[in-house]
């Protein structure tokens, strides 16, 4: 009864409406459409604050996306995904500050280095199954964040400040990361691309294997596949997604700090996924957007907004385990079949 994950492919045969052939994909279009609408309105208003907030929400949405890839699609609960997010942020900050202030160079270095770090961390964490994996990923992030917190070369508890703002060149035009609207659109395009790549991968044999691993890991070897290899690939892919999302952080805020690797960031990513809808991928962005709004609204009344987030999270675990998207899809489907029946 309380199944958490949404099975996007299972639809009743009576549903033939165009909208609902891919209800989750429609909701993804809706999300990016709404984001564009927001950009138009905020652009006309000449807004800065909400652009920055929305960009941050997308960046943390990307982190949540990587959590959903593992939790919703592979059946691994990562409690330390902020490790890769923070790692990406630090690498990006170091490249921009110490190396060249080039966006593409920073992204390339982050991609390569998160692959390597993801491989090493994955080989440690994937050995463990179920709750052991959750605890190992938690411990890994905790230990690394502590080391970073105490390493003077990395700025210790202050982190790295004064990261230069890059000009992002696309050949025939350039985006200034300091321009709130321009940078928002860039991150939006990037998030959409990340989502599209992952959504596409889930339709390939690789994605099917992940689904098989999630459903029953012990049967996968009997089909002639090695679950370990697929889990590791998913883990590295998630590390890439988290790292690339984190790479935007210093470009947005101009600094990085060890807090980016702390458990709170990992935990918030899991909350975003659960509230948004596990296994839907786009739910990660919805969850991040909703919770960012909630946090800033509640935060304007009291400093103790965590308690509200905690309550929302628990309520959604107990009463809405499919999250916003899962229940949204169910409601859409009901609405559609009622319309067709009428």
């Amino acid at each position: 009864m309380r199944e958490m994950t949404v099975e996007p492919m299972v639809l009743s045969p009576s549903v033939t409406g165009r909208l609902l052939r891919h209800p989750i994909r429609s909701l993804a279009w809706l999300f990016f459409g709404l984001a564009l609408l927001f950009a138009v309105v905020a652009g006309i208003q000449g807004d800065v604050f909400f652009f920055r907030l929305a960009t941050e929400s997308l960046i943390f949405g990307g982190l949540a996306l990587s959590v959903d890839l593992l939790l919703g699609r592979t059946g691994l609960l990562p409690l330390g995904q902020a490790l890769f997010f923070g790692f990406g942020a630090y690498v990006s900050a170091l490249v921009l500050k110490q190396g060249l202030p080039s966006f593409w160079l920073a992204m390339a270095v982050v991609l390569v280095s998160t692959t390597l770090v993801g491989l090493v961390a994955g080989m440690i964490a994937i050995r463990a199954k179920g709750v052991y994996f959750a605890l190992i990923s938690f411990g890994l992030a905790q230990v690394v964040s502590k080391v970073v917190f105490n390493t003077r070369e990395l700025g210790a508890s202050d982190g790295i400040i004064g990261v230069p703002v890059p000009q992002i060149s696309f050949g025939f035009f350039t985006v200034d990361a300091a321009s709130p609207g321009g940078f928002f659109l860039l991150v939006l395009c990037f998030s959409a691309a990340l989502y599209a790549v992952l959504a596409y991968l889930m339709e390939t044999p690789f994605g099917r294997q992940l689904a098989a691993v999630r459903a029953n890991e012990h049967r996968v070897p009997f089909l002639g596949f090695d679950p370990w290899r697929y889990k590791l690939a998913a883990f590295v892919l998630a590390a890439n997604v988290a790292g690339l999302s984190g790479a935007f952080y210093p470009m947005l805020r101009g600094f990085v700090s060890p807090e980016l690797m702390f458990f709170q960031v990992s935990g918030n990513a899991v909350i975003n996924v659960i509230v948004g809808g596990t296994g839907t991928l786009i739910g990660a962005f919805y969850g991040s957007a909703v919770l960012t709004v909630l946090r800033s609204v509640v935060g304007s009344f009291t400093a103790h907004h965590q308690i509200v987030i905690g309550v929302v999270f628990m309520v959604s675990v107990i009463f809405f385990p499919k999250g916003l998207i899962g229940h949204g899809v169910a409601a859409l489907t009901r609405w559609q079949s009622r319309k067709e029946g009428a």
Partner: protein
Amino acid sequence: MGEMLEWLQFVLAPQVINGASIGVAVVLMALGLTIIFGLLDVINMAHGEFYAIGAYAAVALLGVGLPFWWALGLTPLLMAVVGYATERTLIQRVFHSKERHTLTLLLTFGLAIIMEDALKIVFGANPLRLEAPISGASEVFGLFFPNYRLFVMALGSGVIAAVWLVVFRTRLGAMVRAAAYDRHMAASLGVPVAVVYAGTFAFGVALAGLAGVLLAPIYSVFPTMGRDFVLIAFSVVIIGGLGSIKGAVIAGLLLTQVQSISSLYISPVWSDPLLFAIMVLVLMWRPQGLFGRLGHA
């Protein structure tokens, strides 16, 4: 030779004894975690916050004028009530789901967030200090140790021994083990499984609370005090084997010794990575931890 003896007496021995006094508190935490997992399959992410609440309960009880000994006795009882209520109202809601592991972990994680913020609201974020109820020091091996640490060690060891006796030598313990092994069979033999579950959860939470009170006079009391401490307890439980009582005791005492002796040679900053490296090595060798799960031999 004489140098060696002096090193043993003045360098090593103090570290061993200090490590052991923290060790018994870590074991109390780890026992709670491991018993709850062994019986209910629940990773209690809020265990560190229950520990913090235990410490704050002692602060509050002392604040209304009760002596420390009353606080020490009352806090575990209060925490047991809190734990019982938590199990009945929250854990049971998702207990029969297929994804019990994940859902209960998430629920207790949410609970941890709420409790931590609640502590901040009620007591403020600043660290509080608690006066040690026993002052002075005693001579052990020609060295002086704070009496309170020796007391923590003695009481903690007593509680650990009592837990062991109850679980492995009494009828109550047999019921708990039976429910951990096969709850349907235990239920049909007349074990009140629901009560055993809630009671066990309550007991684990009470142990965390007890550890909180015991360590409150040694460390300072602050809302996030449970975070680092619970990480050690989790490492202990993973190394010892999730759900194993023997594992929690042995791994808890050993790991805290490793931590305190290694701090002679390396900066304490590296002691967590060291613990973690040990954990990874143990898992590579034995992915299920050193010892078997409660009720499973």
